[in-house]
């Protein structure tokens, strides 16, 4: 496997993990823009725009876009997060030219009023759908409580109000400002014709705007406290809890992942034995989230309402015990094995490598091969883990609970 990169003033940066033996090729446009880059009056515009990208360009109608993707036999999709918007397609290597031409064309959508109105309905359905699903907006409320005034508190989907009130002109302006050569990467993995890729992308993007799209890092004042959402006839109790974490380029991130794995992995962690194996809770877990300048640990508990108090106390106790007594060598070894094996298995598919490469490039313009990453996990000591626990789980958290109003 070989890492190949290309950057000139004329075009966006191209990053490729070439594997000549692969059966497939994956391509993605990684745009460094997400809900944290939105003004409050257009909350949800990044995600809405991600939908609108498929609604046609100068060269293709929406129907043609969809038909072409299916003609390519592509496994394709798109997603939006707090800090990125990603469009990707996995195809057979002989379809490279057509896939790259299509994906690149999509990045300059027409954004027509009529399509905007129809798609607005789809987004409102999506919001309604998530609002019907557990934990019923608790993640969003917890994020707002925790990040407060910080841009990371903006909801990725926006709200029914912000999406209903949005104008197409606002989206056009957002697109002009954020979808620029300086703010996008073309990432590819698998069996790639690199020379052809560079030529095709360079010529197709020559006319794109080159203005840098700034994102000002801002140190958050992490909020804490508790609040409840009332829901009619909710059967389970849900609690979402956020603690301060570390940023996506902090060296402590390896220790933090191991900490969360030891405490709260799906199988074989402390919370698993305490709450899941015993049938006391349906879910009890912790995971880290990494952003540019900061991060958080997310805790999620789902159980029967009558067990909620006791389970929350158990969760607290698992954390306190870890802070007091640390983590054993054996636990670290097991967690390391689990993480290593899941990274190795995931790395078998070029489509998975695409996301690892793209995310890493967006975060730090750098990519470390799997063996180096495994080495980083191997180097973490029990002290490192205890230290990162002190800086995160020792601090006050923000908690949102979903409480049922009916028996």
């Amino acid at each position, binding site marked *: 496997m070989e890492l190949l990169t290309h950057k000139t003033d004329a075009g966006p940066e191209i990053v490729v993990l070439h594997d000549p033996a692969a059966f497939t090729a994956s391509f993605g446009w990684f745009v460094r823009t997400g809900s944290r880059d939105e003004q409050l009056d257009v909350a949800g515009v990044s995600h809405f725009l991600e939908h609108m990208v498929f609604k046609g360009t100068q060269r293709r109608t929406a129907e043609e876009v969809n038909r072409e993707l299916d003609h390519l036999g592509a496994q394709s999709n798109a997603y939006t997060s707090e800090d990125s918007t990603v469009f990707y397609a996995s195809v057979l290597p002989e379809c490279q030219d057509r896939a790259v031409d299509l994906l690149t064309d999509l990045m300059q959508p027409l954004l027509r009023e009529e399509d905007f109105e*129809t798609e607005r309905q*789809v987004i409102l359905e999506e919001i309604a759908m998530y609002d019907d*699903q557990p934990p019923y907006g608790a993640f969003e409320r917890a994020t707002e409580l925790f990040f407060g005034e910080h841009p990371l508190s903006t909801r990725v989907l926006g709200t029914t109000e912000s999406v209903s009130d949005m104008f197409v002109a606002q989206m056009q302006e957002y697109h002009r400002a954020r979808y620029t050569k300086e703010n996008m990467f073309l990432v590819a993995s698998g069996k790639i014709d690199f020379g052809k890729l560079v030529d095709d992308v360079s010529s197709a993007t020559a006319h794109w705007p080159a203005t840098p799209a700034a994102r000002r890092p801002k140190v958050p004042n992490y909020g804490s406290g508790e609040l409840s959402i009332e829901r009619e006839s909710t059967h389970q109790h849900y609690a979402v809890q956020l603690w301060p974490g570390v940023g996506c380029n902090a060296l402590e991130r390896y220790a933090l992942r191991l900490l969360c794995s030891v405490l709260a992995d799906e199988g074989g962690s402390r919370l698993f034995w305490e709450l899941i194996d015993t*049938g006391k809770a*349906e879910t009890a877990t912790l995971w880290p989230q990494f952003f540019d300048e900061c991060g958080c640990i997310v805790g999620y508990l789902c*159980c*029967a309402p009558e067990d909620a108090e006791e389970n929350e106390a158990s969760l607290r106790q698992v954390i306190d015990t870890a802070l007091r007594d640390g983590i054993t060598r054996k636990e670290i070894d097991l967690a390391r094995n689990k993480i290593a094996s899941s990274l*190795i298995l995931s790395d*078998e598919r070029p489509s998975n490598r695409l996301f690892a490469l793209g995310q890493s490039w967006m975060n730090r313009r750098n990519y470390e091969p799997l063996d180096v990453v495994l080495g980083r996990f191997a180097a973490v000591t029990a002290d490192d883990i205890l230290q990162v626990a002190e800086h995160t789980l020792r601090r006050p958290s923000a908690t949102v609970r979903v409480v049922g109003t009916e028996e």
Partner: protein
Amino acid sequence: MDQRLLRHQFDNGLVLLGEHMPWLRSSAFSFLLPAGTCFEPMGLDGLSGMCSEMVQRGAGGLDSRQFLERLDELGVERSSSITTSHSSFSCAMPTEVLATVLGLYSDIVRRPHLPEDQLPDARQLCLQELRALDDEPSHRCFSELKKFRYPLPFGRISQGSKQGLEAIDMPSLNSFFEQNYKPAGCILAVAGNFNWEHLCEVVEQQLGDWRGPELLGMPVLHSNYGSMHVDHATNQTHLALAYDCASYESSEYYEARALVGVLSDGMSSRLFSEVREKRGLVYSVFATCFSMAGQGSVMCYAGTTTNRAEETLQVLLETIHSLDDGITEDELARLKNRIKSSLVFEQESSAARSGQIASDWFYLGRVPDRDEVCARVDGLTCESLLKHFRENLPKNFSLVTVGSQSLELPEGVA
């Protein structure tokens, strides 16, 4: 790429299947036992799931905790699942530990401790999963459709029922284990970078002298039709609609599957464009083929805000019937490309391939290779699809809605 199905039939009924994928670092297996929900005794709904949970609480020389730790040491990604026909265990792992992991799972199916003191915990865990379903209206919608369309024993869901789970005791659990964890009807499918001779030796050693009762026959399935509503306080109404189609075993399954592909595969499919793209009625809409006990059904889903549910159902039905206007060459070409490239994607995953091999063997008693699938797909024409549609017009509809307002099938749809 040379593709060959390796097969070894053990005299106790177990079949071992293998497909070599030497370009991978991993191996994966799917282990299907004939211990699905349709073998649960009356009144003990959820017993297969609870038995699957209990056999994983210690086996052979290891207790529950030691067992999980051993799997983590070995770096095994694992899951277990319950269907109408099977209890199954699936694992993916670095290939060098395959033999060891097969040994551990042989202990699970042959020498579980079934610790009585953990029965209450296992029950609580299963009750949690059942409760979770109540809070997931889109999943619940499909569970209710299964219960409604397929009478007992076929309509049981993997999570069971509250009464069933509460009625399970150690004698019923032990008896289910003894009757259903047996080599007859077992399928062990392995895909990845392994040595076949060595694999056969390992399985012979671990499972060759395994004995158990005969495989039970399945009763005949008579489906149930009509409409049903489940009241649920939600923004959206969730629709699950089913109608008859050719089953996986049928010689015309490819035609039936292709018609569902025209409806639902990809962003240019008819349901996605008519229901979502043109009208913005839903975020999620799809159709899929489902086979059980020799009968096939197309199952469709749409979730929409309640005031637009009736229109959504109408557009859903119209789109299904639009197949009668014919299938275009372009639609068929797109479908063929999608199916063929998905076969290539499958070569990148030992887990996906082992699952497909096990499933093919169960339904067909053989495993079609890529060449055969491609030839069959290439042979599909717009004419053959239209002919199949007209000879097998959608009928025997079942509709289940979950939400705050009920819907009925329109006049003339049955």
